[in-house]
Structure formats: C-alpha cells, structure tokens
C-alpha cells in the first residue's frame, strides 16, 4: 500500500516548475534563473525579496506572461504559459493586474479614464464600468480627483490611480513591483490594506517585489532569491504555527527562535484524508512529521501477532524521526484517523536541524528510546 499520499492544500494559482531563463544569444547568452520551482495558492500575499540582479523581476515577468517561458513550465490561473504565442500571452494578461514602480498614466486622460482603459479589456458593460471605476477610486480615497489629469495629482495620488487601474477588474492574480515606493505612509497604508483585503476577502493572490518593511507584517509568504535561485520560501502563517508547535515540544525547547524558524522554513504542508497511510512500517524513512491538525493512529505489527494500535497522535505531536536518525526502516505505521494536516521535514533538512543542537539530537534519541520501550512492553 503506498504511503505519503500528498494533497496540496488547493489548486495553486501559480505553479512554476524547473524554470530556467536566459538573456542574450550565442556567446552573450547569460542564464539568470536556475531551475526555480514554486507554487502559490489563492489568497496569498507573497513578497519576493533579493538583491538586485537576483532574478526576482525576471521571474515576476515570466509569471505575468510578459516574457515567453524558455525552459521549464509555468501555469497561472490553470493556464499553461509554456509555448504560448505572443497574442495568447496578451490574452492571459487580461486576467492579471500589474502595478509598476512608475505610475505610467496617460497624461492626456483623466484619473477615471486611465482606470477605464483597464476596464475596456475587462469585458464590462459601460454602465458597470463607471460604477466599478468610481468605487475603486473611492476605496483608494481619490474619487474626488476622478476628473483630474495626472499632472494635477500628487505623486501618491497618481500611484493610487495606477493601483486602481490594476485592481479594478478584480484580477485573481496581481503582480506588483515596489507599489509603495513613491507613496507616503498614509497612501502606502491604503494601498497595502487594499491589497491585503483583496487576498483575504476575495481570494486574490498578490505577488509583490518590495523592500518596504511596513508590508512585511501583512505578508503571508516571503520568497527570497539570490543569483537566480529561490533560496528560501517561507509561508509565514505556517512558519508561526510550526514554531508555536515546536517550541511546545520538550525536544525543541533548546532551539533558539532563529533555529526554530530555520526548521519551520524547511517544512512542507501536507494533507491526508481519513484512512490515508502517512508512513508504513518497513518502509525507508524519508520525512519527519509534525501534526498541525487532526489525529493519526500509530500501529505496529509483530510476526505472528495481530496489528496493534500503539498510540494516537494529535496536533503538536511529531513522528517519523527515528528512521531518519538510525537509517532503519519504519517501525510502525501511521494512518490518518480523520483529515490530517501535517508539516513534514525532509531527511536531509531534518538531519541538518538535528546537527544544530547536540541537546536536540540527544533528546530525540531519548524520545525514540522511550517509544521503543513502550512498543516492546505492549
């Protein structure tokens, strides 16, 4: 019976798989992205960080269908961008919202008309456009400037018009490049709060390149890129949950917050339905598990004896660590009793985490010893 049946939480809005990208041709060809993979679900506010030239804007432009995918695959909104012709890429972009660092408003058009330009490709009826456009300007606090030309608006107001233009079609995916760079604190708050509302209320996904620390508090996920590679991808909500759980467990109490965050950062969320086998006795151990929600039954089999339930595990408890430390097969089977949500840590990452603290390693061994003893005594 197969083990480790993985259920990713939702159909991702963005799925990037093994994407390489190059600039230039011939001898001048220069690789800027290296086998990057990432999945981003609905309703996430993702911040991409990294030094200049790290490839984050290239990756953003690829996700935004602004460039053609060269190697690897990118799916956004259930549409595979690989191999799409320029015309089709344009069609895909109609479902996205773009916020650029510069407002790029037409000086010849009023604020409302600039917003309306976006609605014209959104397929709305003219009457609906007016109401929708004005409502969006109102949400950004500039409805009273709807008839003003950009030259008569302040820098912050112009950027808010550009944000209104990007969001007025209620896109399911918004890509933003330093959207608050030219905004004062008040304008910045309005824009960021609106973006956050879109993610929480409407399930919109926002991917943003920013260095604005004020936004970090609202981010669901931080993706860090260096030299064309995604070097970390932290789901902050999950990381906080994981850290909360880990620090409540005796084994992890010695880890510093930074070490806990490093462990949390490497853990991946997995979901199982009731009855699914998470690990199977006798299989090689590949992952360490932390239960975030639901319950699981631990059962053991001895030759000539019926299967026995050894323990029932719930939220905050861990399993699967012994096989990773000893390189021995799993000594028990863990099955989801009901829908089970776990965070798993791969063998390599687990061992690195163990190496962080001798105390940690010893305690794991102690725990493992205790469990073995319990198993034998039954």
């Amino acid at each position: 019976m197969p083990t480790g049946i993985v259920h990713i939480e939702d159909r991702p809005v963005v799925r990037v798989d093994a994407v390489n990208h190059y600039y230039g041709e011939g001898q001048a060809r220069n690789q800027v992205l290296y086998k990057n993979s990432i999945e981003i679900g609905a309703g996430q506010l993702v911040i991409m960080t990294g030094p200049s030239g790290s490839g984050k804007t290239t990756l953003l432009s690829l996700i935004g269908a602004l460039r053609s995918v060269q190697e690897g695959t990118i799916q956004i909104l259930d549409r595979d961008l690989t191999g799409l012709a320029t015309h089709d890429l344009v069609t895909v972009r109609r479902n996205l919202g773009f916020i650029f660092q510069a407002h790029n408003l037409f000086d010849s058009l009023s604020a409302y008309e600039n917003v309306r330009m976006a609605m014209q490709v959104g397929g709305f009826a003219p009457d609906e456009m007016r109401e929708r456009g004005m409502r969006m300007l109102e949400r950004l606090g500039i409805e009273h400037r709807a008839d003003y030309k950009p030259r008569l608006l302040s820098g912050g107001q112009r950027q808010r018009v550009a944000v209104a233009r990007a969001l007025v079609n209620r896109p399911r995916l918004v890509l933003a490049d330093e959207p608050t760079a030219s905004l004062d604190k008040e304008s910045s708050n309005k824009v960021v709060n609106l973006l956050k509302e879109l993610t929480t209320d409407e399930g919109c996904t926002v991917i943003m390149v920013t260095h604005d620390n004020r936004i970090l508090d609202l981010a669901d996920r931080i993706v860090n890129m260096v030299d064309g590679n995604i070097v970390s991808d932290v789901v902050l909500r999950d990381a906080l949950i994981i850290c909360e759980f880990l620090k409540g467990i005796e084994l992890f109490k010695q880890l510093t917050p930074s070490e806990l965050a490093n462990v949390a950062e490497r853990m991946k969320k997995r979901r199982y339905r009731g009855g699914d086998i998470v690990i199977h006795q006798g299989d090689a151990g590949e992952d360490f598990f932390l239960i975030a929600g639901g319950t699981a039954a631990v059962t053991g089999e001895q030759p000539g004896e019926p299967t026995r339930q050894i323990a029932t595990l719930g939220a905050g408890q861990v399993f699967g660590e012994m096989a990773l430390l000893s390189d021995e097969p799993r000594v028990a089977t863990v099955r989801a009793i009901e829908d089970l949500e776990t965070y798993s840590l791969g063998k390599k990452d687990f061992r690195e985490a163990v190496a962080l603290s001798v105390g940690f390693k010893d305690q794991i061994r102690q725990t493992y010893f205790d469990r073995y003893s319990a198993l034998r005594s039954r």
Partner: protein
Amino acid sequence: MPRILAPVPLARRNLLADRRRLLRALAGIAFAVLLMMVELGFRTAFIGSMLLPIQQLDGDLMLLSSTKYEFDRKAPFPRRLFYEARAVPGIASVRPLYLERKTAVWKNPQTLELFGIQVFGFDPDQPVFLLPEVAANLEALRQPDTVMIDRRARSNMGYASAGLRTELSRRNIQVVGTFRLGPNFFSDGTVIMSDRNFFKFFGNYSASPSDLSDITDLPDVEVGVIKVSPGRRIPDVQRALRAALPASVTVLTKAQLIDQERRFHLQVSPVGPIFDVGTLVGFAVGMLICYQILFSELSDQLSQYATLKAMGYYNSYLVKVVLEQAVLYALLAYLVAWAACYVIFRVVGELALIPLRMSIGLTVTSVVLALTMCIVAALIAVRRVLATDPAELF
C-alpha cells in the same frame, strides 16, 4: 462628471493634450499639405491653360499632322489632305485653323514694349471658335489688318479694346473686339484674326488677299476642324477619315485631342513632371514632419503604451490609436492648408491670370495625399511602440 459610455478616445485625447504642441504639429503638416496643394493646383492650372484654345474649337473631329504632338507647336499638314477630307462621306464641314506663335510679336499699346503672343487665323466664312464674341465680330474681322485680342491676356500686353491701334509683328493693326480666353504658361495672350490677314502677316504675302481663289500656293493647314453630318456617328466618320487619309495625318475627336494634349504635358513635357516632383517633395517633407511629430509623442509615452500591452491590449489597438491620431492630424492640417491655399489661388490666379481653382479633383487628390502621408508616417513611427517590451516595466 458627465457620463462617458463610449470607449476612451485615447487618440483624440493625446492629440489635444498639449495645445501648443498641437499647433506646432498642425503648422508643420499644413505647410507640407499646402506645398502639395499649390503644386497640384499649378499643375492643374498649367494643363488647363494649355487646353483652353482646344476647348473653344467648334468641332467633332480634328484633323492634324501626325507629327503634331503638342497643340501649341506649329506642325501644319498639306492643304491637299484638307480637301481630301472634305470628300469623305459623313463630313458636314472641314474648316481650317492656322497657328503662329514663334514669330508673332505684340506691341503693348501703352508702353510700346514688345511681347510674344499666340495667333490663330481662321476663315470668317467658316468659323471654328465657340467664343461668342468672335462669332459676333466676323464682319469686322474680314476687314484688312484687324484682330480680336484676349481681354484676359496678361497685363504686360497692355490694355486693349475695340478701336485701339497697335502693331502685330511690326505691322499696324486695329483691334476690333475682345474675347475671353486666358493666357497659358508659354504665351501671355492670344490674338484671333481672319485667314486672309493671317496669310498677310505670317504667310509672306504683301497684302491681304481679297479672294483666296487667287492664291495658288495657299499655306498648309494647322488644324482641320471637322463637323460631322447630323445623324452620323462620330467614331464611324473618324474611321472613314483614317481610312481615306494617309498616315501623315491623324484624326482625333475633340476629347481625344484634349486627352493627348494633357498626357503630353503630364508625361512628356518637362513642365508637368516638375510639378509632380514638387508634389512629391511636399509629400516627403510632410511625411517627415508627421513622422517626427508622432515619433516624438510616442517616445514620450512609451511606458504608457507598454503598460497598455501589459494590461492586455493587442498591438492592433496600439496601431489603431496611432493611426487615428495621424488621420486627425492630417484632416485638421488639411483644413488649415485648404483655407490658405484658397487664398493663395485667388490672389495668384488673378495676378497671373491662370485658371487656379480649388476644384473637387484637387480637393480629393490633396486630401488623399495628406491622409496617405500621415498614415505612412504613422505606420513607420508606430514600430517604436510595437517594439516596446512590457517586461521592461518591472
């Protein structure tokens, strides 16, 4: 705020966004359009002035020497053929017309200065002109040393009216009347006289012959103006004439002669192509001006157009916007140029006495050229927008 239900008129908004820039652009494009219109107007006037005498000939068919490729150029054919033509069935009349230009000199009666002039001679008993003033003065023209002069001749010919005496080719003449024709680009005016006087002045006869039958060596005929008998089809008679006469003469309908004359001046004579070159220069200048204006505007708005591409606008929309703007430039500039050209034509036409008119043909041709000029410029300039990469906005 007024309700705006139509799509955002981006091209119009871009056009009107900067009034000063718009005025500069319109001035530049209008100048080029004006240049083209003036060239086209002069070209039309040139051709029109050269056709004026032909249009005033009262004939269905014209008998001419085959070597006469230009009406203004003297190329007579043998009088024998003129008589032979009369014998062809279906001919009501064949009337002679004589022409002199090279040796005809008119003395301005006021300043006594001498100027070249175009002279036509005809038989008053067989009138060939449609000009009503000439028809009314046939008896006066029969008198020795009498002429009628074009009252639309250029002012350097002097003011001439009935009763005035002056000299034509150094012989005294009396003006017995005027007619309204107009000069052309080669001749300042036209004189019409009887064939008898014509022979005396330009045929080396000592006096006006009183009876042409007395003359045994009548000069050759420049044009035989033919009337077809009532009920006979002109093409049939034309074919019969061609069959009866040698190839040294040609028989053309009046429309064919006009067309031949027009084609000669447009394609063969050096004057027509000069106007074509002028028009072409105007077109090229206008296209450059329009391109420069559009290129500059588009360059200022590249990031805006790139944003439109990122938002999901196809290239076809961007091309449409730029073309629409170019067409608006062309039409607005055309209105300015038309008004300026109208004034120029009125002033120059009156001063130079040439038929400069804002005809429908000229209006249509110049508006088509103005539109083409701006559209071509826009199609070249829009490449800059099409080349923008929205990915560069990040």
